[in-house]
């Protein structure tokens, strides 16, 4: 885990009409870490992700992702960042490999690199046997695994995962969490994981940020947050306890 911050924001704010979706967000994420971004539905998690990707312009404040400003150098950011949206979709009448190849081409990955890379990724997510099946026939779990492969096909430095385990069965969830863990551990990719499934976040994340009603109410290592909020020194806490404490205060 390097000491270089990959994502930094300063006073990042987004206002829709009279509603403040994200309020003066300031945090940083280090290279190679898994950052859990928590919060109830509608807390502004997705809006933050979209701002970090340069898909939505912030009303005020600054952000830097991999050294680039997403609002002005969106293309450079998108070259380095893989984004897995919530409820991801595919071109259902193309097969798994064709879907991956399309996104490899959009990212200007040369064919001689993308061919072996696509095979390796399909192998990693356990879909090599289904590579020539149309994606329309895939189950939810398979689609989600294919989505991970698709995010990685560009060879990103950072991945943004928006609710990657929603709707998966327990086995699928476990496989997904293992994959997320190995992204950081084996490939050194920084993972920004947005979720409201707290036990899962607790299993894989190094640090967490808790967002409620547009405000980042806490950010740090889970142990530190536990000590601060619950006054316990041991490992005997769940993230849910910390989260509920913050939630009630807000």
């Amino acid at each position, binding site marked *: 885990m390097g000491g270089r911050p990959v994502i930094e924001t300063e006073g990042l704010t987004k206002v829709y009409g009279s509603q403040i979706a994200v309020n003066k967000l300031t945090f940083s994420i280090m290279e190679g870490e898994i950052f859990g971004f928590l919060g109830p539905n509608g807390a502004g998690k997705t809006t933050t992700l979209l701002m970090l990707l340069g898909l939505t312009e912030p009303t005020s404040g600054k952000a830097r992702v991999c050294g680039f400003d997403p609002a002005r150098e969106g293309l450079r950011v998108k070259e380095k960042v893989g984004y897995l949206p919530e409820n991801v979709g595919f071109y259902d009448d193309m097969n798994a490999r064709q879907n991956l190849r399309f996104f490899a081409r*959009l990212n200007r990955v040369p064919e001689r690199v993308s061919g072996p890379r696509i095979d390796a990724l399909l192998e990693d997510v356990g879909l090599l046997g289904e590579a020539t099946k149309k994606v329309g026939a895939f189950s939810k779990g398979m689609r989600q695994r294919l989505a991970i492969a698709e995010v990685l096909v560009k060879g990103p430095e950072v991945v943004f995962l928006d609710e990657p385990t929603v709707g998966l069965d327990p086995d699928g969830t476990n496989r997904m969490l293992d994959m997320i863990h190995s992204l950081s551990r084996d490939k050194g990719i920084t993972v920004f994981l947005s979720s409201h499934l707290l036990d899962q976040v607790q299993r894989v994340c190094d640090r967490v940020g808790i967002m409620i009603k547009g405000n980042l109410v806490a950010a740090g290592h889970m142990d530190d947050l536990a000590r601060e909020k619950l006054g316990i020194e041991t490992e005997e806490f769940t993230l849910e306890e910390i989260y509920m404490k913050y939630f009630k205060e807000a």
Partner: protein
Amino acid sequence: MQGILTIFRKEMEDYFSSIRFVLISALIVMVGVIIASMVGMTIREEVRGMAKPTLLFLYLFTSTGKLFSFTQFIGFFGPLIGIVLGFDAINRERASRTLGKLVSQPIYRDAIINAKFLAGVATIAVILVSIVLIISGLGVTLLGIVPGIEEVLRLVIYLLISLLYISFWLGISILFSVVFRNTSTSALAALALWIFSSFLVPLGAGFISDALAPVGETSGGEVEAVLKHEELQRAISLFSPTSLYGDATSTILDPMRKTARSVVLVGPLERISQERFQNPLPVGQSLSIVAPYVISLVALTLLCFGICYLVFMRQEIRTV
């Protein structure tokens, strides 16, 4: 550039493997072949025994025969090709939740819409060129004459104007696919506009000019009143791309036509001088007659694509 090329390639693959493409080409080829063979046989009967028939080839496309001519058919059904190819261009991506993924790739956002428009235009070009080639081939076998350079040139210009005309409708339907989230809504909206433009505008033009510049008992059929009525009606129908297209192509494909207007006021002396020049116009002259129509069509198409582009670029892409 890479982004446009990649999406363009995928869209072309999608079009050529889609059922709608097969259906629409089958329909057009079927109608085209039926019209051309009917017209071809009629022409063959009529010119039997004629020593040196001239300007026959283009009649294949303009002669109405028993039903309607090929150009009328394209003028009427052409918009449908554009609408069918474009009505779900953007909102299908939205519905299948692939648009959010697409815009988070390192491509300019306009690459998406440019590539989709260009792929549609290329597909339309393929359909049009093949049907014109099929009809020409039929014509050569039926009539036993080969088109001259002049006629080929006119056909090429006709193809370009038709491509422009159908692209206008492609632009309209892509615009609706950006504005409306629902694919059936955008299809219906585009169809409504098509019907409005092909039926109601010409009809409305008649009504409005009747109201504003009546020709009847009071004016006693004076030349000025008739002319004013006619001018007004034309001015209004110029807002309909269907009328623009009809006027432009009928002049281009018929060298004997010297004006795109239906009513021409001539004095007795002018009539005599006109009758002395009953020869067909060269292509360049026909082209200069229709230039204003073509320019209007270009302007309409660009305007439509421009609006579509602006709306799409300003739209917030949320995956919600």
